[in-house]
């Protein structure tokens, strides 16, 4: 077929016309490259946008699904719950379409009621749907590939994105809990996107990023549930690990029993996340999260496991807390899947038979929520099937996928202990396997290892990784075919998101599953960077927007990064957002509360106001007692700077300095780079001026005191709790300038831009 013949196809012309595209005249020269022709519809797009929604989903999937009437046929489409359902279903239909009778594809004959089609006649020749089906078959003989001409919308068009330097600021705060250094900012301003990417990889080498990464992953795994008290110790059975309570001899070694016990507990609880951190830090394949043939221990858990090379740790040596890979004799490791914390967090029972574990496995590592296979109504009251999970289609729709994977968990009890390999698996349940692959019996001793390898080589693993990182660093739950429903705007958003995820996932796999690459792509995407609409299509806007309400942990880090002092009662206490207000501000405990709140409620609104009050009260005097060159907040002013003298004379230099410092604060706290005449800067100036003037009036009238409230003085080092030298104390505010600055700081700290990124 000549290239222009394809475009001459009436259907394609119709599609192009429907899409409102301009069609170029076919080239007169046969050698012309049709892929350059505007309006080209490639095969995947044709299936996704035409055949699937209009024919396959609407007509075929009424029966040709796992629980449908045609479930026993050779054409059973996979559920939309699979992230790769389009490509899988396209390949499936293509394979069936290759079967012909008298030169006509079976997929054209069956819907016309021929070839013993169980559903009889569902389409007629000449129907729009039938024409689409014909086009699909036609394309199998004459595939259409389109070279990108820039006409396919990626979703970025019409969106205003953060600049490279602005993206660096946001990324530095979220990934590393700090502001960019001037050198970093300059480099990115000068070097643009390549310099941004380089800077991001630099941020990802920092210790704080490891903390952030682990924090994000725990939102998925929830294994920090065992960080409470000494719950980590309870993950192991001392029958299996006789040296579990090794620390009971602590006093003999002059050590603190409670400290050793707590560190042992934490190490056991943190094992899955330590593996994740190890892989990320060392640029190891993320697939090892499942396939690693080792576990992560530190000096304390090595003792609990009784590892041969374990020795009594030096509790004063910070290195004793460092994790390292290790193998435990007799344990068939399979990454985090065989860690006691994971197995206990996702327990099983005699009747559940690891199905909960299988559900979590699919959902987390393969981006497939099996339970959504069953969102269509079922009616078990009419089931007469013996062993319904094997034989009733209402049940097998989930169980056929879930149970083989459940079987692969057979070696592990709820408490993470090993089941003797001699014990048989249930005979009234599907045997262990993955998809259409049965697990060879020789793999039984490390069934999870076998399962992990299957999953790691499945394209869905990389998709799940990208989706996890997208959610983690934007706070937005990825769309699925099910959540998008039939809403055309969401459908378009899903199309764009899927195209992006698939592309990043493919590249991630090609880069040996280096998870930092997925993070880089999220950070440089519009999902992280969009700030405005300048003509985007509606589908692009569904997930666009940097409107992520900071989590308690993120806000905690941002406070320190920008103000230089933490929000806490005193130097010996935990920060408010890590402790007292963590749950109220939408945090999780990984146990009873496992979903973060992403919108501020009335309590959270009040907490942010209290934070602004207390931090303005504390940070202003503490910054002002520093030498001007060391100040984070007030490098350009002194408390003596007043715009007008007591005699009523204006002091332009003082006002300019105040404006310049307001400009500095807007940039530092909110990331707003404002000109001096910007209305927002003027609004801040007017607030400063009104509070200062109003305060002066109150001082003059004796209705306010020049002595600061004790909680708003600088008398103690906020980090150490030590008293400041008397000559550096700040206890009074006779000009009311300190409180004017405090008011401005309280204004900025309660701002939407401070609380969101």
């Amino acid at each position, binding site marked *: 077929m000549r290239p222009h013949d394809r475009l001459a196809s009436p259907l394609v012309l119709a599609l192009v016309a429907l899409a409102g595209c301009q069609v170029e005249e076919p080239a007169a020269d046969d050698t012309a490259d049709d892929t350059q022709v505007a309006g080209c519809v490639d095969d995947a797009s044709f299936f996704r946008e035409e055949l699937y929604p209009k024919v396959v989903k609407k007509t075929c999937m009424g029966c040709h699904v796992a629980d449908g009437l045609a479930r026993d046929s050779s054409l059973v489409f996979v559920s939309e719950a699979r992230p790769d359902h389009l490509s899988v279903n396209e390949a499936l239909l293509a394979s069936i379409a290759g079967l012909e009778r008298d030169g006509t594809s079976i997929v054209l004959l069956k819907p016309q009621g021929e070839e013993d089609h169980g559903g009889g006649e569902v389409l007629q020749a000449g129907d729009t749907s039938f024409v689409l089906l014909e086009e699909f078959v036609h394309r199998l003989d004459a595939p259409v590939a389109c070279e990108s001409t820039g006409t396919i919308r990626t979703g970025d068009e019409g969106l205003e994105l953060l600049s490279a330097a602005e993206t660096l600021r946001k990324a530095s705060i979220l990934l590393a809990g700090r502001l960019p250094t001037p050198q970093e900012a300059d480099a990115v301003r000068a070097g643009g996107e390549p310099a941004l990417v380089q800077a991001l990889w630099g941020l990802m080498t920092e210790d704080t990023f490891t903390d952030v990464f682990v924090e994000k992953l725990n939102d998925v795994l929830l294994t920090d549930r065992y960080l409470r008290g000494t719950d980590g110790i309870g993950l192991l059975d001392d029958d299996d690990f006789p040296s579990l309570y090794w620390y009971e001899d602590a006093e003999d070694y002059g050590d603190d029993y409670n400290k050793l016990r707590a560190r042992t507990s934490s190490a056991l609880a943190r094992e899955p996340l330590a593996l994740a951190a190890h892989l990320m830090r060392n640029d190891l394949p993320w697939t090892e999260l499942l396939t690693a043939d080792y576990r992560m221990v530190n000096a304390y858990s090595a003792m609990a496991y009784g590892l041969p090379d374990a020795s009594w740790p030096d509790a004063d040596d910070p290195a004793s807390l460092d994790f390292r890979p290790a193998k435990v004799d007799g344990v068939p490791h399979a990454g985090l899947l065989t860690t006691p914390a994971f197995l206990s967090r996702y327990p099983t029972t005699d009747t559940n038979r690891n199905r909960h574990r299988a559900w979590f496995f699919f959902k987390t590592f393969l981006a497939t929520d099996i339970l959504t296979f069953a969102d269509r109504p079922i009616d078990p009251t009419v089931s007469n099937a013996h062993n319904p999970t094997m034989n009733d289609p209402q049940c097998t729709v989930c169980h056929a996928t879930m149970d083989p994977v459940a079987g692969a968990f057979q070696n592990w009890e709820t408490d993470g202990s090993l089941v003797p390999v001699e014990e048989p698996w249930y005979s009234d349940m599907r045997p262990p396997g993955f998809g259409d692959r049965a697990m060879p019996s020789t793999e039984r001793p490390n069934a999870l290892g076998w399962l992990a390898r299957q999953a790691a080589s499945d394209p869905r693993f990389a998709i799940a990784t990208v989706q996890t990182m997208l959610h983690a660093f934007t706070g937005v739950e990825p769309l699925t075919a099910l959540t998008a429903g039939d809403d055309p705007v969401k459908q378009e958003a899903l199309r764009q998101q899927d195209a992006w995820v698939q592309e990043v996932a493919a590249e991630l796999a090609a880069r040996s599953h280096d998870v930092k690459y997925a993070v880089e792509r999220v950070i440089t995407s519009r999902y992280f960077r969009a700030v405005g609409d300048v003509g985007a299509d509606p589908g692009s*806007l569904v997930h666009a927007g940097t409107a992520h309400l900071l989590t308690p942990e993120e806000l905690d880090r941002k406070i320190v990064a920008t103000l230089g002092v933490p929000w806490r009662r005193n130097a010996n206490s935990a920060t408010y957002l890590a402790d007292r207000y963590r749950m109220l501000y939408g945090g999780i405990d990984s146990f009873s509360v496992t979903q973060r709140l992403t*919108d501020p409620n009335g309590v959270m609104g009040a907490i942010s106001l209290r934070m602004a009050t207390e931090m303005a009260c504390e940070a202003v005097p503490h910054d002002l007692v520093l030498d001007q060159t060391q100040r984070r907040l007030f490098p350009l002013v002194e408390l003596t700077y007043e715009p007008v003298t007591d005699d009523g004379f204006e002091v332009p230099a003082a006002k300019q300095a105040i404006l310049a410092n307001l400009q500095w604060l807007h940039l530092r706290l909110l990331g707003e780079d404002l000109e001096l005449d910007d209305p927002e800067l003027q609004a801040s100036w007017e607030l400063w001026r009104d509070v200062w003037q109003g305060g002066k009036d109150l001082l003059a009238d004796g209705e306010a005191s020049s002595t600061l409230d004790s909680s708003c003085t600088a008398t103690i080092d906020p980090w150490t709790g030590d008293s400041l030298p008397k000559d550096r104390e700040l206890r009074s505010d006779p000009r009311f300038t300190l409180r004017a600055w405090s008011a401005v700081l309280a204004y900025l700290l309660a701002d939407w831009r401070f609380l969101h990124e």
Partner: protein
Amino acid sequence: MDRRTFLRLTAASGLAATAPWPARRALAADPYPGPYWLFFHASGGWDPTLLCDPKGRRNEQEVDPVNTYFTDEIEEVGPFKVPPVDGMRAFFSRFRDQLLVINGVDTQTNSHETGTRHTWSGSMDPGMPALGALLGTHVEPRPSLSYLAHGGYDVTDGLVAPTRLADTSAILEIAYPERLDPSKEESTFLPDSLMARLAQARNDRLQRLHDGATLPRVARSRELLALSRSGDNELARLATRLPSSLPNDGLQRQAQVSLACFEAGVAVAASLSTGGFDTHGNHDASHTPRLQTLVNGITYAMDEAERRGIADKVIVVVGSDFARTPYYNDGNGKDHWSITSMMMMGPGIRGGRVVGATDERQVPLRLDPETLQLRDGGVRITPADVHASLRQLAGMDAWDVAARYPVGSLLPLLG
């Protein structure tokens, strides 16, 4: 983009703006007067045959019985059949005139997630908001803690920010964010007149940011922040209603906090949850205490509502993911069964009735959709249908936001 297009897109993308900005700004000057909704979720899938739809077994020889107790042990309390489970007789006696029991409710699923969603949103579709979220959005002016999400199904689809309030000890200090010492009225960060200037500056700034937003997600986020701060004195009002100590029982604690919020007029609806119902093993011994915790929690809530003088404004709805099989498995447990029950009471609900029925094997019997009498070829009640009635009770059956989330058929369930 014009405002109309913007709103349409916002709605279409699930980022539901439900009222123009200015209307939201003038919120909550007065306490919300009720009605107040309490949703009790029995998490894991309860067994109605041990609660409000008892079956029993005829004799020792019966093969594969639904229950281990005998049919002649089932009591009648008013219109209700009551199983021989400790505490049930007292519960149904207490609420014999108020309680509506709906039996034979078909959740159409054995999946926890889908069943919970169906029971509390009225749909099996992913992303559907809980009825509590709709209620918390529907009220205008909207109190800033309008939807309390203690547990269970609390999906909001962006309609409203849910509030978790397990720890109330910090309420006093955050109720007065402008005070340096929360317990001292005079201990303000700035003198009152200057605080007012600061508050005005903050509001003006947020308004400007909102007006300048061109992305729906950003605009909505700024709107929610404004809304979260709109309830001046609401937390202070709540602080005066909170007891000095809360019950140890988790469900009762959730109820206590919710009712304090109701009395203070700062909340509209609350989702409460108690777990442990997924008894695949050792069913009777494990399940019965959970049901007792549930009915004790409901009773406690109504006692507390009476003590606070708001009992006549409280609507209680009780449900679960689905039910348990009408037979025991090899481990004396019961697995998932899609035919369940729901219970409810409160103003607008005619109590002292049982609607719907199941046969001796807990298969639902069909009903005439107009009379609700048993009728072959009639309909099965689904949670979606129950929600159609609850929405009508809440006065939101003609509300365009609710219409975006379709539920079932309107049957005369509530009387």
